[in-house]
């Protein structure tokens, strides 16, 4: 390979190769037909961020609808109950199926996982591209379902409402069905890659913890998603032919749908959070310049979270007429989830203890994650407790709880990972100053929006309701103001990240002093990731072998 020293490359760094994966081939067509995991990762990143934008706009509309109990803006009512139902359904469905589930594995994971393993690509590059196009088809169908008609079932599609209501529920469920296969193919690919394409010298316990997290996610994607697929097929057939499986008027059982749905969707929650945890396990040792504490404990806790996820779904049905025995068993099993989650939390904190911590943007996000996930996780325990659950079910407490996990956990980790690997992916540094300001805005806005919802929920404000009592008005308004701060933070992030593509200084190969293999390649990486096959010389997170370069 030809080398030239490009301006901006850091002294002491290898010269930048002229050819990299971004300019190896040119033109839109070369991107659309690429089999390169890095390009597919980038395309996925653009795609999921677009979905995040649409879902986010609906979130802002939901919050704006609830600004006051009269639903007025400048003295005029601007939204009715039906529109509001569509807002929150589309917010939920888009965020869950189009954004959070693929967000980390399919975009950042796609880019980083093969590099961390020291591989040239994933095991099945064509399947990888197909997964992306299935996502696109699913996205087009989901978005057109909101243009063609109304979907107002909530993202859970509970029967019998979903089988009897008018509107584009059929199209939306087909979209989710297709998105499910996109997710299965990603998981299948990553598991095969991890098994077969590790660098020479890399045993299972030499893999970065990010891989362990993505691997555990893959297991869930493969084992849980098919059940969602068949459930949605049944739902569609029930809608069209009325075959009497979910509709009690013709002999079906609506609770069966809930069991099926949560058998997938509870594990799906771990599809969302495990990759987030995986990112945090990378960021914390890197910015603490310290070997991760309890490597094996974190690795095993990822796997045990994946396995536990399959036996706790019944806690979504505590008030749906489940037997007392089932309730007690599911309650006890749900408490178990706290153990591996706690193991992770304490190991991360212990890693930071006496570390040489530097507070750059990715680390700020990681610390925000620790704070927010602790709240999200601990309020989960409230719901595992049967007596408390009955009071809190379907209140804003639930909404606050899962947003603390999904947004405070996964999205914050996603942002952290995006900032962490941005220099590697784009070859440019973003503005550290704006990064920190945006992170602070996101953190404050998030807590304003959802922290207040814990209070409302505790006082009995039901979720999904369009109308509410005047007494909740101040808290609702506060939550809406918070959503604006949060929106501003995210908007700012988009601006400075995009600006960095043009004006950012060129990034060194290893701006944070990371120890995993992806930092061995150039920024941005060459087409096949490494110029020579990397061989693992020390275990991950071994900082004794590394001198730290600060940018």
């Amino acid at each position, binding site marked *: 390979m030809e080398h030239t020293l490009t301006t901006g490359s850091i002294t002491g760094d290898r010269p930048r190769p002229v050819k990299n994966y971004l300019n190896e081939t040119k033109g839109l067509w070369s991107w659309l037909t690429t089999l390169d995991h890095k390009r597919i990762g980038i395309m996925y990143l653009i795609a999921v961020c677009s979905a995040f934008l649409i879902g986010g706009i609906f979130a802002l509309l939901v919050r704006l609808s609830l600004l006051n109990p009269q639903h007025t803006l400048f003295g005029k009512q601007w939204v009715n109950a039906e529109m509001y139902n569509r807002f929150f359904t589309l917010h939920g469905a888009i965020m869950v199926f189009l954004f959070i589930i693929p967000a980390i594995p399919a975009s950042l994971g796609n880019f980083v996982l093969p590099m961390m393993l020291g591989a040239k690509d994933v095991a099945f590059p064509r399947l990888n591209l197909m997964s992306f196009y299935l996502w696109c088809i699913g996205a087009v169908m989901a978005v057109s379902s909101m243009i063609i008609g109304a979907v107002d079932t909530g993202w859970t599609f509970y029967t019998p409402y979903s089988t009897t209501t008018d509107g584009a529920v059929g199209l939306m469920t087909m979209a989710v069905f297709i998105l499910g296969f996109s997710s299965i193919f990603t998981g299948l690919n990553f*598991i095969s890659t991890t098994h*077969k394409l590790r660098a020479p010298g890399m045993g299972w316990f030499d893999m970065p913890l990010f891989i362990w997290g993505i691997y555990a996610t893959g297991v869930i994607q493969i084992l849980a998603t*098919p059940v969602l697929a068949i459930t949605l097929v*049944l739902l569609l057939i029930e809608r069209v032919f009325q075959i009497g*499986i979910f509709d009690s008027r*013709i002999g*079906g*059982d609506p609770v069966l749908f809930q069991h099926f749905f949560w058998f997938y969707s509870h594990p799906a929650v771990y599809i969302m959070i495990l990759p987030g945890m995986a990112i945090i396990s990378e960021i914390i040792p890197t910015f603490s310049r310290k070997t991760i504490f309890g490597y094996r404990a974190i690795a095993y806790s990822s796997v045990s979270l994946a396995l536990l996820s399959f036996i706790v779904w019944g806690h979504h049905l505590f008030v749906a007429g489940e037997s007392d025995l089932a309730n007690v068993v599911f309650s006890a099993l749900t408490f178990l989830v706290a153990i591996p989650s706690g193991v992770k939390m304490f190991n991360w904190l212990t890693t930071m203890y006496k570390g040489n911590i530097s507070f750059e943007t990715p680390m700020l996000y990681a610390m925000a994650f620790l704070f927010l996930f602790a709240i999200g996780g601990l309020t989960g325990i409230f719901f595992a407790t049967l007596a408390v659950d009955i009071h809190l079910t379907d209140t804003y407490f639930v909404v606050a709880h899962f947003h603390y996990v999904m947004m405070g956990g996964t999205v914050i980790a996603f942002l952290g990972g995006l900032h962490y690997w941005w220099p590697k992916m784009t070859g440019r540094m973003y503005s550290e100053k704006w990064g920190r300001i945006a992170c602070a805005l996101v953190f404050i806005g998030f807590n304003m929006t959802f922290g207040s919802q814990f209070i409302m929920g505790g006082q009995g404000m039901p979720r999904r309701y369009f109308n509410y009592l005047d007494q909740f008005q101040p808290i609702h308004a506060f939550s809406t103001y918070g959503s604006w701060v949060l929106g501003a933070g995210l908007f700012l992030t988009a601006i400075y990240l995009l600006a960095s593509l043009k004006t950012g200084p060129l990034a060194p190969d290893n701006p944070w002093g990371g120890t995993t293999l992806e930092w061995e390649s150039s920024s941005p990486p060459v087409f096949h990731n490494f110029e020579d096959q990397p061989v693992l010389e020390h275990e991950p997170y071994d900082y004794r072998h590394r001198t730290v370069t600060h940018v």
Partner: protein
Amino acid sequence: MEQQFDTSKIGMWLFLATEVLTFGGLFAGFGLMQSKYPQEFVEAHEHLQRLAGAGNTVVLLVSSFTAVMAVLAVRTNQAKKAAMYLWLTVGCAGIFMCVKAYEYTHKFEEGLLPGIFYRHHGDLIAGSHGYATFFSFYFMMTGLHGLHVLAGMVLMSWLAIRARRGDFSDKYYTPVDLVALFWHLVDLIWIYLFPLYYLIT
């Protein structure tokens, strides 16, 4: 090459896991409904043709055997023999589908149909939805299984043509091996479906 084969095989096993879970959902639903309508399910299953089901089980078992023989033949560089075994497998699958079509016709004539389409008369528990639910699951599960048989037939025919052309050898027989794996799963699912539907007591 060796590594590619191993990787593909892992991919196939993972795919088969998703298949098992897909059918697993339906099996669980069937079990739940059976506990809800135990009498109706016993009565409804009397309408199934046990002999046809048993015959089909044998046919599929034979087809699994011929699939194994096809793999063995490609691995020993016997292209013609491999093609023959693959066509035999397709043939067995064809017989299975014909018998299934015959059974379906019978159900349609008797009005033993899913959900609101159920038209059968003379059931012991008049007006119960249990009968229709039984046939909802019957058509759904055997239908989904039938689609898998059809997919298998297409794949096997494609492989038979390629085998005859000499595309495979002991160096490269990954597609044959993977499709055979798939075919064994299709067979296995039927082996569970048969007692589930035809042998309820």
